[in-house]
């Protein structure tokens, strides 16, 4: 009795070992073709960061129109995903990569992992989003990293929310802000870049002077957005910070994902005087893509109206295609800051390490 069971366990375990070796070879066969289709659908793989999202029916539309099977490969945060794409450039993991933003733009360009492609949909995209004249990386969406505030908290305290970056160094806002570490967090880096863009590196009052004042005003730094928002922000946690570095699209998300329907967002956005930094997200065809033709189709599709209109409620960022209409909750509760800070990808790439190092010395040490 026992022997039989033990053998079954040993055999089972060995089968698993074997299965482990066998699965990848079986993989292509696990998708049986529709009997109605004349040809088996071709597979195309989209590698991305973990925040990629889309509606099922929108992606199904792409699959139907192109007789394709779309495989998704979420690969960690934006930095980790790009690093893996670069490491695998000799033998790419996917056909298309989505999710390079303007802070990682130069790293991606320098690695030379993308092939140029000019989709028709680019006509509807304003020039300010097109950073690569050779069209190796094409813009898909954008979002602004901005300060968010807890409306209820400021109401209760009878305090006006800050209007701009300068306000944060005032005494009445002492100890109220939580920001992310630019060395470990993408919104943290964006917010630091906003201060670089706004205050500059030269002159009487540089961006580092500003951070020195923020530090004196008791700014709290955490390593990631989750820790800031879910751990410190009064509107979303047991924390005690009513000001947080988040996104301009966070208020519509608060409304959309509210427990009870809301007329008004519980949080507001500080948009004044260069307090925001614009992140643009790009897509590109990976060099060595197995299915170039289908990859082009996918990019066409993702710049087209259907996908672009799907973006806001799935990823909570804005579509770059100007023909795309915004959903109601976005039109009502989202703000697009007029003058986000302006720092070019080239400047970011050249100075990122130095700026982060200087920031670390100023704020943390």
């Amino acid at each position, binding site marked *: 009795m026992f022997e039989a069971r033990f053998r079954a366990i040993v055999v089972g375990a060995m089968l698993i070992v074997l299965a482990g070796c066998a699965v990848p070879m079986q993989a292509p066969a696990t998708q049986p073709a529709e009997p109605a289709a004349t040809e088996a659908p071709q597979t195309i793989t989209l590698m991305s960061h973990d925040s990629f999202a889309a509606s099922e029916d929108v992606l199904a539309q792409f699959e139907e129109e192109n007789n394709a099977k779309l495989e998704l490969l979420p690969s960690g945060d934006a930095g980790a995903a790009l690093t893996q794409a670069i490491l695998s450039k000799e033998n790419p993991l996917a056909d298309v990569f989505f999710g390079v933003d303007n802070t990682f733009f130069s790293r991606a360009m320098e690695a030379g992992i993308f092939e140029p492609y000019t989709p028709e949909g680019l006509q509807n995209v304003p020039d300010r989003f097109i950073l690569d004249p050779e069209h190796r990386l094409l813009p898909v969406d954008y979002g602004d990293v901005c300060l968010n505030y807890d409306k209820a908290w400021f109401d209760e305290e009878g305090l006006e929310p800050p209007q701009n970056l300068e306000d944060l160094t005032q005494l009445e806002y002492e100890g109220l802000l939580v920001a992310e570490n630019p060395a*470990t967090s993408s919104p943290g880096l964006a917010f630091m870049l906003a201060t670089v863009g706004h205050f500059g590196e030269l002159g009487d009052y540089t961006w580092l002077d500003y951070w020195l004042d923020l530090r004196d005003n008791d700014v709290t*730094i955490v390593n990631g957005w989750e820790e800031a928002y879910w751990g410190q922000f009064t509107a979303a946690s047991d924390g005690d910070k009513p000001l947080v570095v988040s996104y301009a699209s966070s208020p519509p998300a608060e409304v959309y*994902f509210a427990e009870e329907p809301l007329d008004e967002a519980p949080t507001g956005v500080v948009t004044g005087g260069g307090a925001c930094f614009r992140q643009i997200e790009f897509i590109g065809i990976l060099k060595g893509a197995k299915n170039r033709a289908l990859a082009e189709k996918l990019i066409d599709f993702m710049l087209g109206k259907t996908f672009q209109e799907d973006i806001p409620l799935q990823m909570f960022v804005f579509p770059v295609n100007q023909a795309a209409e915004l959903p109601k909750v976005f039109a009502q509760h989202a703000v697009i800051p007029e003058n986000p800070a302006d720092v070019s990808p080239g400047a970011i790439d050249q100075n990122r390490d130095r700026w982060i190092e200087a920031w670390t010395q100023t704020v*943390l040490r």
Partner: protein
Amino acid sequence: MREQEQNPQIPSTGSGRRTHHAPRTTLLTWLIRSAPVILYILPVAFLTVLFFYPLFEIFKLSFVPEGRLSLGSLEKLVSSSYYLKTLWFTIWQATVSMLLTVLLALPGAYIIARYDFLGKSVIQALTTIPFVLPTVVVATAFTALLGPRGWVNTALMGTLGLEEPLINLQFTIWIILLAHVFYNYTVVLRIVGGFWANLSPRVEEAAAVLGAGRWQVFREVTLPLLSPAITAASLLVFIFDFTSFGVILILGGPRYATLEVEIYRQAVNLFNLPVAAALSLAQIVFTFSLMWVYTRLQARTSVPLDLRARRQVQRAPATRREKWIVGGNVALMLGLLTTPLLALAARSFSESGGGWTLNFYRELFINRRGSIMFVPPIEAVRNSVGFAGATTLLALLLGLIAAYLLVRRRGWISSVLDPVFMLPLGTSAVTLGFGYIIALDQPPLNLRASPALIPLAHTLVAFPFVVRSVLPALRGIDPRLREAAAVLGAGPWRVWREIDLPIVGRALLVGAVFAFTVSMGEFGATIFIARPQVPTMPVAIFRFLGQPGALNYGQALAMSTLLMLVVGVGFLAIERFRVGGVGEF
């Protein structure tokens, strides 16, 4: 393969014990004789393919890009004292965390080993649940309890009439130590408790009869007998804390960094692969040296023990003193380990306006946005449990073989292999994950985007737990027992089944619990690996936490509570596993 299945007596070789068999020279005999060697190759081959080869490739790419040695970017490592300080912090916080964990968990292990009381197995299961919880979620539980507006501070401010919160652990070393104890208490509890439970109390009783006081008995008899299990558990805890990532990053805040945190920063945020690889190498060398010293000491201290079935050593607490000891430790376990879990669970049922709701749980089943990233809870549970089941079987198999290899091949083989078997635990997950990307990209090892890689990577981290759990018991088996059985006519397979298995069975179950836990919690590497659409429960939790909104937060907590429930049930099931004397001993 077939022959191995038919002859599973493999682990119990031992040439001396088979002499009563008439020597035969058939192929079958040869296979039986060489089967152990074939089996021993398994764990070594597994490590070679899934550990050393990917590491070698990523180190090669980092240090020798385009075929030329390039160490220019490493200058920073020596020129700045920052990295030395990081190394020092990594070591001392791990040491202190380990000592604290052992100190707090030893009394717990004692009551688990020696007493029988109501709800024991449930309490034991509860202590292991922290192990699987994502740090972000644990951090919110800690904030709910100990934060500036948390329950404890609110209560203290109310009763003491204070204006400011009394306790402020946020971003201090204390919260790091507390979290490490919270996560690792169970490692000491289970490994030491499991071993202790089979230790005969007769030597202690003899010492007491001879006039030794309680403290003297503990120090001079119990402690030395327990030392193999205590050191094994301490090592695991130390290495865990040594490579601590989430706790440092999330609870410690930006002023603290371990090597692991710095490696991630260098590799991902700064794309400085050479520095990341050099730091990983430092981690590995340190782990290996530590294990080397341990192996040397261990080999000297291990003695055959008088191991007994637990029903012979356990009883209900009788005297008032015993009741106090049991009660006090149960209170500590519940207070330290279970309150944060309860805080989480309570949150998942709470409405923002006060009052209770099942809303977040209902919402888990609705794909409101028709999103492709929606994970039906049933599917998440199925994927998680499936991966964890595969990991457990694989880790048990490899771990058991590896443990036998270490016990049977004393000498240089085991003194090299013992540290090697621990290396996966002490290696940076992100480095290894990147190694997979470049190394496992060609058939027949084209695993990097295969779902099979997930349980394989989990096994890499899980099987050292099995090795460490099983070794102390295995080394404690008195060889005379086996010899007696053999003399009485039992074949090698029967000897193994009747002697080894019952004694090691308990430890195997402990190993199984950890393997299951490691996988359910998505330990380490997998979170960084590009992975196809087989979302697990932790993946679903992270997806909810990725976007603002009270509903997302509530669903993340609801999914976390489900995760606790599933692993809790899993532990109880594993502990109830009783086949052929496994676990009864």
